[in-house]
Structure formats: C-alpha cells, structure tokens
C-alpha cells in the first residue's frame, strides 16, 4: 500500500497500463504539451512520445470518434475529455456509435476504449462548467459507466476499464483529485458493476457515488463518533451496470435509505436507485427513501448561490435525521452534542 492522491493514482495507472500494453494510447485536448488541464497526464508525453500521447485539435466529436474507430481495429485508446460538460459535443459518437457498434453489427466489432472525464461543481465555474451529466451515459445500454471515489478504486477501476473490451465512461471529479488514500501496489483490476459497502451499519443506508460517496462516508463516520449512529454506506462505484443487489440487501437490513447525488434531482441517478429499492425492498422500508441532490437550476457563479445549489453536509445530515425521525428512531444521546 502507498498513500497517494486520486490524481497520482490515475497518473500512475495510465503509465503502468501504457508500459504493459503497446496498444494503449492517450488522446485528448491539451494532454501532452500542456500536461492535461488537471495534470493527470503530466510527464507522459515526454516518456512515451507523440504517438502514444496525442494532443488533438478542439474537436470532441472528431477525436472521440477517431478513438472509437481506432478501438474497432484493436487499439485501446484512453480518451480524456477535459470536463464532462464538453462531452456533449461528442455525445453522438459516444451514444450513437461507441455504445452501438458491438450490438448493432451482431457482435462483430468490439470497442475497447475508455473515456476519462471529470464532473463536479463547487469551483465557481458557472452554469456550463459545473454539470454532472453522467446520467446521460448511464442511461445507455452498451456503455459501462464507473465513478470511483477513492484513489484505490480509481486505480483498480481504471485498470479494469482499460482492459475491458467495451466502451467505458470513467467519471472523475474535480473535488476528488487532491484527496488521498492508500493504494495497493499490485495491478489487480477492479470489478466493473459492483458497489462497495464502505461502512457497515444498521440504522440507515446512505448511498452515493464519486464525490458523494466520499461525503457519505465522512458524514457516517462523524455521526458514529459524535451521535452514536450506525449508518451503512454504499459507494455505487459503477452506474452501469448498477449493483441493485447490494443496495437492496443493505436496505433490507437497515429499513431506510438516503441517496446522495451531485446531479439534478428529477430523473437523476438517485431516482433509479430509489426505484430499485422500491422494487426490491418495499416491504422492508420503514420510511420513504430520500434523495439529496443539486438544486434544479443552471449552476450560478456567485459563491453564495453556488453553495446554496450544491448539496451540503448539513443538507445530508438533515435528511438523515428526518428519515430516522420518520421511523421513530431515538437518537442516542452521547453528551454535549444534544
């Protein structure tokens, strides 16, 4: 194990996968000379040269589609789309092509590629640069969508994504790049399609992915320490496929769920999770399933409004208590906090 940042884990994994397999190459805007908008690819152009680290023109549709075509011939491109907002310019190639090619041609061509892209608000980047639109991809059969929240999962899932023979959308998050965690030294691929129970508990199930899985764990730990609450935390890790089994098994045990998401509420990822709980654990629920999501506005620039729009830790704690109150769960008094 080595303690490192999420950014470092991504960088090191890209590098080791490029060393392992000559077919792996990087393609995207400003990833070479500029070393990446978020410096994930720093130093790689120098080490691997222009063939393996390709700076592209500003042409998301063109270079994403080119990566798909290269993958059809057996290369393993790892595309960087600077932020998920710009992936909208490539959505035709991702949804109408990458996702379709394997099935639409009767399994004759595989598309072994990865699209890495960060989402995330809270950086005062305004309406066009703060969106969390992973749902657009998670909706589409033929794609796989992963959203790791820890450096260790970032490594394991990036390895899995690169070695997988299907197009994988690899969701990163601006707020996670500097977070740190222990990362295994071995190169074992993670499993796409599996959630993780990152904290066991029985009072309530708190569910999140990407940044919100991080937030969920932090809040659950705090509430355990200060309030004696025993909350189970699920990190979805994969949005497609969605590990409904793990979610439902947890809710059968805790009888309540709060879902955290950085995307918009209506039709969001949380809606799908809530529907899954309703289908799989209806008889076990003691309270309505709650969702804590972003306010439904184009993200404002001003700090005061941006903060109001983003789900805060306090919003999450409120939702947890309201849910526990609905069940009639008595808060365990542990001292000065009450």
């Amino acid at each position: 194990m080595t303690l490192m940042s999420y950014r470092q884990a991504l960088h090191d994994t890209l590098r080791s996968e490029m060393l392992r397999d000559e077919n792996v190459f990087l393609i995207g805007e400003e990833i070479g000379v500029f070393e990446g908008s978020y410096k994930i690819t720093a130093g790689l152009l120098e080490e691997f040269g222009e063939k393996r680290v390709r700076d592209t023109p500003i042409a998301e549709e063109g270079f994403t589609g080119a990566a798909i075509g290269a993958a059809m011939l057996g290369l393993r491109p790892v595309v960087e789309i600077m932020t998920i907002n710009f992936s909208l310019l490539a959505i035709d190639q991702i949804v109408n092509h990458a996702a379709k090619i394997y099935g639409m041609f009767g399994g004759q061509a595989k598309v072994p590629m990865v699209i890495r892209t960060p989402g995330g608000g809270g950086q005062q980047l305004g309406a066009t640069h703060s969106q969390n639109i992973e749902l657009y991809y998670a909706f589409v059969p033929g794609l796989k969508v992963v959203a790791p929240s820890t450096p260790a999962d970032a490594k394991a899932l990036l390895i899995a994504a690169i070695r997988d023979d299907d197009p994988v959308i690899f969701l990163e998050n601006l707020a996670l790049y500097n977070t740190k965690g222990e990362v295994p030294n071995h190169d074992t691929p993670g499993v796409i399609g599996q959630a993780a129970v990152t904290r066991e508990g029985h009072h309530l199930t708190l569910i999140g992915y990407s940044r919100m899985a991080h937030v969920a764990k932090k809040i659950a730990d705090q509430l355990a320490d200060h309030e004696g609450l025993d909350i189970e935390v699920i990190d979805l890790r994969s949005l497609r496929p969605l590990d409904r089994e793990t979610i439902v098994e947890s809710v059968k045990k805790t009888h309540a769920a709060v879902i955290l998401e950085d995307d918009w509420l209506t039709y969001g990822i949380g809606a799908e999770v809530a529907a899954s709980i309703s289908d799989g654990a209806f008889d076990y629920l003691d309270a309505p399933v709650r969702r804590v999501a972003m306010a439904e506005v184009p993200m404002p620039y001003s700090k005061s409004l941006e903060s109001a729009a983003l789900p805060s830790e306090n919003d999450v704690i409120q939702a947890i208590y309201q849910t526990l109150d609905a069940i009639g769960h008595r808060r365990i008094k542990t001292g000065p906090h009450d």
Partner: protein
Amino acid sequence: MTDRKRTPRKPTARTSRAKTAPVEVGSDAQGLLDFYREMLFIRRFEERAARGYTQALIGGYCHLNLGEEATVVGLMSALQPTDYLFTNYREHGYAIARGIDPRRIMAELYGRVDGVSKGWGGSMHMFDTAHRMLGGYGIVGGQIPLATGAALAIDYRSGDEVVMCTMGDGTTNIGAFHESLNIASLWHLPIVYVIINNRLGMGTSVERSSAEPELYKRGAAYQIESARVDGLDPVAVALAGKHAVEVARAGRPYLLEVVCERLRGHSVVDPAKYRSADEVASLKEHDPVHTLAARLVAEGIADEESLLTLDQEVLANVEEISAFAEASAFPEEQTLFDYNYATAVPNDSRRLPGQPLFVTTPTSGADQ
C-alpha cells in the same frame, strides 16, 4: 467534361480540372463487361429489395443505390481486399461490390439470422469483418470520425492498408466532416474521403445546403488534395479512386467527389414529389447502367441479345437470393441479450419488458 443542362438547378460540372493518374483500369473490353455485370447485379438487387419492401418483407428505412452503380463498382475496384470501407446507410451496393455474399445482404434486409449483421443492423447497418466493410451507419456523418480513427490505427501500427470513407453531399455540412478532415490532414492519415454527390440530401439540393457547392473544394481548407469525377462512368471513377488510394497509401488523406444521380426517392417510400417533371425525365439520360449498356453495344463489346441473356441470368439469381433470405430464420428471442457487452460484467440488466427487478418468492400455496 459532360455538363448536363437541366432546369431549374444549375448544372453540376461532372469533373474537376484536377488530373487523375493515367492508369489502365477496366477500360479494356473485359473490364467494361465486368463492371457492367456488377452494376446490373446491383441494379436488380436493389429493385428486388424495393419489391421486398412493398411485400413487407423488409422493414424500417431502405435507401437504394439506384443511379450510383457506376460509382459503387468504380470505387470498390480501387481498394485492395485488406483495405477498409466505412460507409453510410445507402450501402447495399457497396457490400455487394466488396464481395460479401449477396444472400447474406438480402437476409440482413429481411432481418434474418443469416444476415451480415445477424439481423441486428438492417438496411442501414451492414457490417462484415472478413471483407473489411466496417459499417453501414445510419447517423449522417457518424462514420467519418470512426473511419478517421481506423486510419489512425493503421498508421499507429505502420500498416499499409487504406481506409475509404464514403458519404453523401449533404453530409459535408456536418461538423464531424470538418473535424475529421482536419485531424486526418494534421496526422497524415491514410484515408480517402469520398463524397457521393447525388445533388440531393433528402430533398434539399446541394445549392440550398452548401455555401461552396463544388464540394471537392472543401479539401482546400485542410490542405487535402481533392478532385471531382463523373459518376456516370465506372472507368473514370475507378481511375480517380485508384489515384486517391495511392495518395492515401503514401500517407496523405484525399478527398474525392463523385457526381452521380439518385434515380428514385431518398428511400423506397419517398415519391420524390419535389423533383420537377423535366428533372425526372432527364434522369433517364443519366442512368449509368443504361449508359454503359449503350456503350458496350456501340463499341461492339456486347450485343443487345447477350445483354438480355445476362439480365435474365441476373434476375434469376436475384430471385434465388431473396428466396434464400426468406427461408432464413428470424433470430430467436432468447438471443436478445447476446451482444450486451463484449466483456461480461456482474449486474448487467437482462430483463424483458415488464419483468420485475427482483424476483419475489411466492408466499403461499400459489405455486404449482
């Protein structure tokens, strides 16, 4: 140069001044006859497909290559078997000329298991790995970035194959076209982009959709060599195609525009009411199959009778092909999820409509 004089649209010059290399292709008697046989086959195949459509044996959209036959055979003759083809939804003829078993092409139209894409693609999505025909794409322009990426893969591996990517005139207005040409030129990719200019999108003319209606000139913006050629003449197309492929094989992209005529509607259900009576009447003069037949007779390469015999053979063959397609089975329902993913992963959703997410165990004596 055989300028056509027609109203109301401005005539489209059929060739550019750009020279094509003087290579001997198909211009000998046997070569011309071979082209004719293939063009006639495509003609009859497409007409049979149109009939299959009206018989409700073919569904969805069905776009035909009628009028494009000389273009198809000329272009395909320029490729080596190891070269790759990416094309659009108007691709039955290309699949045939690429050498794919036409029974499998018809079976695909009929949505059967023996279809080239196993019944998953239909008319617009023909694909065959063995013949390096990498689709058939229904999204206008969608194939262009993909083809560019295939050329990138060839270059990455220092291969000597070439990619040919065909598209319609209307498609040159889409962003992906421009992004791809720019990338191909910057990276010296071995690709030939071919614009099949049949002078119409669905019903919108080139003049009403392209600010520069001489489409091959668009290569200039990307420093890509380009030319326009007459799609009525398979030999001219083959020569221009060979030159384009040579340039691409040497590591430079090429843009070739082929001017031809769409003899019928955009797809089989389109009555093309937007075309004037004059225009429709003049189409006969620009029918590549008839034009070549007349040339064969005029040059003494074939006589009317032998051409008639050939036609009867082809018609009989096409009937056998559709009988094969009709006899082929429909894909089984239980194969519905066979191509969800190339790499299996846990929790992949394989539910039919209406099935619950979780199977509930029966509570009482309800089970048999």
